[in-house]
């Protein structure tokens, strides 16, 4: 008799823990052959709100960690991801990718984490300025984290898309609440395991699975979310989300349903510029 495989229960990732959705709801994810891949947690509004609370709580520690440490941790994510590459390839294939495309996506994701790990202590230098004001002040402007970022990850890319959303948000010191791809959710929860074992403090990244049409309005209207990233081409949903976002002047970043390019300006999209006037004199 062949061995019975042990399959994984895919849950959410909130505050460094892996809870089931409080709502008890699920949706079925099936592979190409119709085989059941998972009963995926269908995250609720309450899950989202708890994720925001966890993100807010984790924010100061992460934002005030040294840039060097954040770089170390992001690099660690790449290491962990590389070590579990075959698991991600399997998941991507199960969700419909060819194995060549899956391998390519996983290596691209690993390289992306390495790329952003290196930015952790460099983007500040690129985007800061010392300003020659006409008064006795040392005046400088530098980027700081925007805060809690809510994101709708690309639907079309389960691992690379999600990584390309998370890395620029994280490296800039933000915390994140991200809704994973509905049809390709498996890598999100497995990536959460990677993050969890890479010294990313609990709550810095919170991953939900579920339906964007249900959760996006709550994310966009949440008064303790500072910014939202929408990797979506659903014009109607984006418009409604942007309207809700205006209630607390959220920064809205709109991207296509595709992995974000490796680009320091994507880090800058989740930064605020702070200008300080420091007195000069004896």
């Amino acid at each position: 008799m062949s061995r019975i495989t042990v399959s994984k229960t895919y849950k959410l990732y909130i505050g460094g823990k892996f809870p089931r959705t409080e709502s008890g709801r699920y949706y079925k994810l099936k592979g190409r052959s119709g085989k059941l891949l998972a009963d995926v947690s269908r995250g609720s509004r309450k899950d989202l709100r708890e994720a925001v609370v966890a993100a807010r709580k984790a924010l100061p520690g992460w934002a005030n960690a040294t840039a060097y440490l954040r770089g170390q941790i992001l690099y660690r994510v790449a290491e962990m991801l590389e070590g579990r590459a075959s698991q991600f390839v399997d998941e991507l294939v199960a969700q419909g990718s060819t194995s060549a495309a899956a391998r390519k996506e996983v290596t691209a994701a690993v390289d992306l984490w390495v790329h952003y790990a290196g930015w952790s202590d460099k983007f500040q230098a690129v985007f800061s300025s010392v300003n020659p004001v006409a008064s006795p002040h040392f005046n400088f402007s530098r980027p700081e984290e925007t805060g809690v970022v809510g994101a709708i990850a690309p639907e079309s890319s389960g691992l690379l898309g999600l990584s390309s959303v998370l890395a620029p948000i994280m490296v800039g010191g933000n915390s994140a609440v991200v809704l994973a791809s509905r049809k390709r959710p498996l890598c999100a929860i497995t990536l959460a395991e990677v993050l969890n074992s890479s010294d990313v403090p609990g709550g810095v990244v919170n991953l939900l699975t579920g339906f964007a049409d249900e959760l996006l309005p709550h994310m966009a209207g949440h008064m303790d979310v500072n910014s939202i990233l929408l990797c979506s081409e659903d014009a109607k949903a984006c418009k409604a989300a942007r309207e809700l976002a205006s209630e607390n002047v959220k920064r809205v970043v709109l991207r296509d349903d595709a992995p974000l390019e490796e680009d320091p300006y994507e880090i800058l999209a989740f930064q605020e510029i702070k200008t300080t006037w420091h007195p000069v004199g004896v």
Partner: protein
Amino acid sequence: MPEGPAEGPAGAARAKAPKKTAKRDGKPAKVVKKTGAKGARKSPKGGKKMAPPAKRPAAKPKRGAPEAPAAKPAPVPPEAVAKPDDAERFDFVRGESYAPAPESTDHISLQDSYGLFIGGEWVKSRKRFQTTNPATEEVLAEVGEAGKGDVHRAVTAARDAFEGGWGDMPGRERGKYLFRLARLLQERAREFAVIESMDGGKPIRESRDIDLPLAAAHFFYYAGWADKLEYAFPGRDAYPLGVAGQIIPWNFPLLMAAWKLAPALACGNTVVLKPAETTPLTALKLAELVAEAEFPPGVVNIVTGAGETGQALVEHPDVDKIAFTGSTAVGKMIQKSLAGTEKRYTLELGGKAANIIFDDAPIDQAVEGIVNGIFFNQGHVCCAGSRLLVQESIADTIIRKLKARMETLVVGDPLDKNTDVGAINSREQLDRIRKLVKSGEKEGACLWQSGQDLPGKGFWFKPTIFTACAQSHRVVQEEIFGPVLAIQTFRTPEEAVEKANNTPYGLSGGVWTDKGSKIFEVSKGMRAGVMWANTFNKFDPASPFGGYKESGIGREGGLHGLMPYLDLE
């Protein structure tokens, strides 16, 4: 309580309807308050409302020069102000007379009527409205109210100008137009300053020494960027966006026009600018300079009007970018209305800045900073230091000295060179200030106002502080946009930062201490876009300005101020 003019804490209505001896919580207030310092010593948080002073003959303001208020003492050396006993030598309430020093208005050129500046020409609009001097309530001029059609014409002119050469013009040439404009503004600075003070109510000292020089400096600064954009953003090529619609407020009418126009034009965009309805004149005067500088027609278009004009501009489909400075409420509406579009936007919205004074701060300097923070421009400043957070151990001293200093402020004729606090910009704004101040009293904060007498005509509000404020009080949470300061205390730096960050706003903040490392630590903790250390309300074209949270999106000024006007590819 009904909002009768006689009941407002503002003394503004006093001349019309003398109020009874003020009572508060059943305690009779002093009928004649001799000095602020004395009262302050007895009860720093006493919140005594100023009783009306003995009536002086009703003021009869002349055109452009309301009667000078009676609060100008002989020059007080700063160290004297610091000592409460010295402050008692002067009776600012009863009024020691001083010689008025009004700025003359005979050299300014102001037409009775202005049209809209569209496509390099003055265009008549069907509807018109009047702009008044808030210090005298006299009409200064009549201006056009741009309707949808006018806005459309302006946007079309801007589009034509963008495609007709401005967008492709070598940066060096574009820059030269801006340099010209900066120079023309410098040459006519005095005239513009006087008009600014007449139209908006701000003290001539401020429009002369701050608004005008800074506006010219802004054009000068961004003029220099026009041919250097390729160096501004590493790894990217910079392209103009197209037509920028810009909506500016009434608190710094010309300066805000400069903040908006200079970077937009330097980056190769063309502009439709809408000044605020209560202060359109300097923007219209600026249009004259634009013509004199021979800008190509349509590069700069000025359309006057109120909210509807602004809305037409925001909603116009051929506008590529909206830049708005104004209230958070309107900013949210604009953000919402742009939700379905690809228009870019920057928002500079309200604030409720905390000015944090530590016990190791240079005290007298800090008191000056508090005064500058909240009474500069009548408190009509989005980044005003409208909350004072003072360390508990020095709270009594700071409040005592602050009250003494407030008694020496000269409130009155904006055109008088001695004036520290001018007129409230409009009746609407005065009503709003009164309403919020009333809420402060109702919620239990202790009100104290300085004892200056106010002119009879025009819109005025006394320098006001609230002590014993709770974090939840409206005067702590909401932007008042007037000369009203809410005071709280703290014990530790952590508590100060937490209280400072506990509003929906995040525009600016101040920190006062002799310790440099503390400046950096506290500034870092503050969720605010501009942090002033041992100073407040400083601006410079090279220094980026803008808010966190509900105070806005994007930066103006400096290198970062270019970004909102560029497409970076």
